[in-house]
């Protein structure tokens, strides 16, 4: 995946860190100190969709195969900048009775983006 930097218009991963102290949540969330709410942004011209290194997902490969075979509905545009890799967010926090809860929330952190 590509990291967003400068004035690039192409599909990339934009990092966005939410500091729990800044939003006043550090008193009930013990770990981690923040949430990397990265997101995908940018344009996906048709010629970019499916290029190696830009979209390595299984779904992209399938779509390209369909396009190559001229499957109906795959000819006109529709390529979109989407997450291609995600990981869970592990949280350790207090509930309202001061019990301590640990859980892994799946698919919360975007690790890479690509054109669908």
């Amino acid at each position, binding site marked *: 995946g590509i990291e967003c930097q400068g004035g690039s218009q192409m*599909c990339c991963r934009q990092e*966005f860190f*939410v500091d729990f102290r800044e*939003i006043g*949540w550090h*008193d*009930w969330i*013990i770990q981690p100190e923040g*949430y990397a*709410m990265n*997101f*995908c*942004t*940018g*344009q*996906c011209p048709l010629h970019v969709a499916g290029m190696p290194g830009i979209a390595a997902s299984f779904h992209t490969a399938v779509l390209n195969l369909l396009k190559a075979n001229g499957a109906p509905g795959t000819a006109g*545009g*529709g*390529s*979109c*900048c*989407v997450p291609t890799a995600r990981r869970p967010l592990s*949280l*350790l*926090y*207090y*509930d*309202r*009775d*001061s*019990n*301590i*809860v*640990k*859980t*892994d*929330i*799946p698919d*919360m952190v975007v690790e890479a*983006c690509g054109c669908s």
Partner: protein
Amino acid sequence: TKWGGSQCPACGVPGSDPERQRELLLNLAKQNILDKLHLTQRPTLIQPVSRATLRTALRRLHGPRGRILSDSILGVSGIGAEEQEYEIISFAETGHSTANRTVLDFRLSPDQTSAGLEVLQARLGFFLQMPPNGTWSMYVKVLLPRPQDTNLDLTTQHQLEVDSSGWYQFLLGPEAQAAYSQGHLTLELEPKGWGAQSPVVLDKDAQQPFIIARVRIGKKHRIHRR
């Protein structure tokens, strides 16, 4: 998300200033986390636990298990990666304790993960301070509130052999499921043939008894896709 024409939603947030975008993203992050934790609002803490207590409990959570005093564990089987599990540490509030009996009360917050909560395993951790060279019996009684009133019923009783100072862990049986459904559990620790002072340490700084439970949200309404 709907997208009009050839523009897809990831092509940028149009027209808003950076400060407003940032505010929008922060609100989105907050809402996303609360939704995923099945919370309607952030918890307000009434009695925060001390750092030392927390540290001890966390060490017990994934560290060496020490002496485990029962084989009665709940059924645990293979868990799919897509199922969200929770590990919950609940610290004891002490009830009417005497030299021969220590009462531990636990508030288990059943509403935090909604109905259908499935307890995979729950274990009690407690610290004993004992003189060397000796073996004593200890009873662990599990009490649950009756459905029709607030009185407690004795559901099970276990006899343990203890012989030295340190942390002990006791695996709770199927009664843990009922306790988490009702939101409350009372345990009584009764050492036998003991002197004037109970060996159960209730120090709030580092040796406060606790329960560690591994739970997941029940399988109701789950749809399998092939």
